[in-house]
């Protein structure tokens, strides 16, 4: 049971924050390209979901899974996007992402007068608290190999 990595994007598609805990395979492209690819994929999935949805949907796309991992997605009304990859045993990480937004992002970045919104999140306090939170998750378990 584990968390692989986390991305935070602003509403313009800029990656504000990225960290990884248990990533076994890199994408084979530079980090910049990877952020763009990830954002582009999510943007396309959201547009695809809103067109294909048989009923009116309030929240839209929430997660997807492949044979090896699950991607969880949470978007705030201001367009901030939280993306977390975990293994398949984690069925719902929405609460965790919601907590990261309300208790970590809002408290440590938005309320910080030296942090300019729209720039990359370089608050040490945010990073350490986020890291502690992720490691404290019940489904986080770093593999020894």
């Amino acid at each position, binding site marked *: 049971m584990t968390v692989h990595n986390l991305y935070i994007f602003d509403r313009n598609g800029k990656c504000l924050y990225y960290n*990884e805990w248990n990533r076994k395979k890199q994408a084979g492209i530079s980090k910049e390209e*990877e952020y763009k*690819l990830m954002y582009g994929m999510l943007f396309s999935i959201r547009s695809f*979901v809103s067109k*294909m949805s048989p*009923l009116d949907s309030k*929240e839209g796309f929430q997660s997807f*899974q*492949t044979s*090896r991992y699950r991607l969880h997605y949470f978007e705030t009304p201001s367009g901030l996007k939280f993306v977390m990859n975990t293994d398949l045993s984690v069925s719902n990480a929405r609460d965790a992402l919601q907590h990261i937004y309300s208790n970590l992002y809002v408290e440590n970045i938005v309320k910080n007068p030296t942090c300019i919104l729209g720039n990359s999140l370089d608050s040490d306090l945010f990073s350490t608290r986020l890291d502690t939170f992720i490691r404290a998750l019940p489904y986080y378990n770093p593999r020894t190999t």
Partner: protein
Amino acid sequence: MLASMLFAIGSQLSPEPGSSGIEMLETDVFKLHCFQTLTGIKFIVLADPRQASIDALLRKIYEIYADFALKNPFYSLEMPIRCELFDQNLKSALEIAEKAGNFGAGS
């Protein structure tokens, strides 16, 4: 076409080696299931999030495709499927799955 690109990107961005493309996508009102065969044919089903045993349904649909489309001498690969037996069998498989799914959601 866009859908198959998205599913493939899901595999490239994987943090774990050996990942497939997207197999299931979840929203608040529906779940999309995708089954990819070895030849690259994708079967995509949109269902209620509570509907059970879609995997079995996807394999059943693959079987119906193999029996009534591929084995039909008048059907050419890569073309739209206009085979009556395919439609009939598909319809009854979907009806069975829906009935079975209702019992699953209710209990």
